[in-house]
């Protein structure tokens, strides 16, 4: 499926600024880093989580633990999706009881991914709070979920796709809005 690129929403500087602002907001909201764990959702959320942790370290001088979740096994649509998802391990310190978790993902859309991630976290333990940070909120929620930290709000139509490219995997830092080809 070839996507037609319509516009660049964020360039490298835009992404950097968003990460920096989100990091400041996380620190302010939680009054420092005590008990904080940044948890990225595979795959793009993983890289954003490391960037936020790095940024928090620059600001506060302190290191925040990072965990990675693979939510494939918690998905509610495994039998419906056309593509078999690639299953990978989660990599997280399971002792999250009492911790302040900041979940990180690239795009907030229906909210179902976040629902899976929260189910999984709660199977590991009882965090004192779960917050959500996303680079892009594109709307169209199907569940009562909202983000605490948003890089950029982008109103979209269902015919559009948000492509987040990060240099760790895509060789470039850029967020595009694209259009699905008409059938």
């Amino acid at each position: 499926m070839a996507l037609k690129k319509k516009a660049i929403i964020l360039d490298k500087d835009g992404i950097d600024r968003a990460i920096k602002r989100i990091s400041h907001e996380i620190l302010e909201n939680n009054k420092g880093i005590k008990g904080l764990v940044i948890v990225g959702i595979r795959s793009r959320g993983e890289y954003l989580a490391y960037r936020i942790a790095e940024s928090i370290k620059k600001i506060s001088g302190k290191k925040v633990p990072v965990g990675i979740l693979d939510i494939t096994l918690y998905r509610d649509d495994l039998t419906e999706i056309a593509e078999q998802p690639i299953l990978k391990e989660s990599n997280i310190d399971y002792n999250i009881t009492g911790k302040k978790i900041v979940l990180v993902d690239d795009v907030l859309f229906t909210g179902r991914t976040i629902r899976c991630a929260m189910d999984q976290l709660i199977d590991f333990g009882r965090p004192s709070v779960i917050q959500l940070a996303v680079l892009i909120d594109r709307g169209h929620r199907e569940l009562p979920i909202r983000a605490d930290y948003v890089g950029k709000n982008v109103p979209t139509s269902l015919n559009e796709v948000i492509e987040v490219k990060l240099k760790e995997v895509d060789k470039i830092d850029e967020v595009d809005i694209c259009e699905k080809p008409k059938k």
Partner: protein
Amino acid sequence: MSATKNTITWTKKDLLGLEYLSKEEIELILDHAKSFKEVLLRPLRKVPTLRGKTVANLFYEPSTRTRISFELAAKRLSADVINIVKESSSIQKGETLIDTGRNLEALKIDIIVVRHGSSGAPAALSRAVDISVVNAGDGWHEHPTQALLDIFTLREKLGKINGLKISIIGDIAHSRVARSNIWGFTKLGAKVTVCAPKKLIPKGIEKLGVKITSDVDDAIKDADAINVLRMQFERDEKAAFPSKIQYFKNFGITEERLKRAKKDIVVMHPGPINRGVEMSAEVADGSKSVILKQVTNGIAVRMAVLYLVAHHKRNI
């Protein structure tokens, strides 16, 4: 990173044997098993993936570890499990198995895990029903999940399979484990040697691309790993070996024999072990042995298999 490694999709309804899988399909199962092993390390060793699905363990032959391993694998994935265990003597091959399978299908079972004394029974069952069939050992034919866990354990230990020298030592003639091992390891690029008393080497086995020897020291000498099979005296009608003591003397793996092997040789055994027959207790419990790791990995591998057949994408 390996993020883009698995570009293939699992399209098979069943797992009948490694003979019928491509190298890529075997690797897909192994990569998934790696992720499922992580689930086994969690404080809550359960994921909701197969919630609402039901797995039937249909065992026509006695088995402890394979059945328990499949049952645990299904439960770790939140599937419901029923166990149907029959004495092999009370069962006839053919319609009875097919009828049982059709009844399980009518009972809305999703996956049948079948162990049967006749080679090809799972394949026959698979043709008769639309639900998934997983072979848990059929006659002298195949035991695919055992070979997958052997391969998984060795890959975990040594980082790769391609180019390794692997010797399978013991009762090759009566062993479905040996056959599945040969298919799996050779497809992944290992060089396989089989070693057994002459009467326990089946005719035509060399056609599978293996080296044959009856000299156990020769089999051990250059091997990166040995998979030692249980001597199945209960099946040995030809009396290939007069006694267990004699077998141990000629073929048993001992510390003394391993002194002449590679320093970091890996010793595997599918269990149950006859200590003092196929190998000495010192070897079984020694630092080269990965036997208990195989048991743990067996759950992860079977979780991967159940997951993949449950979510297979039909070839259209």
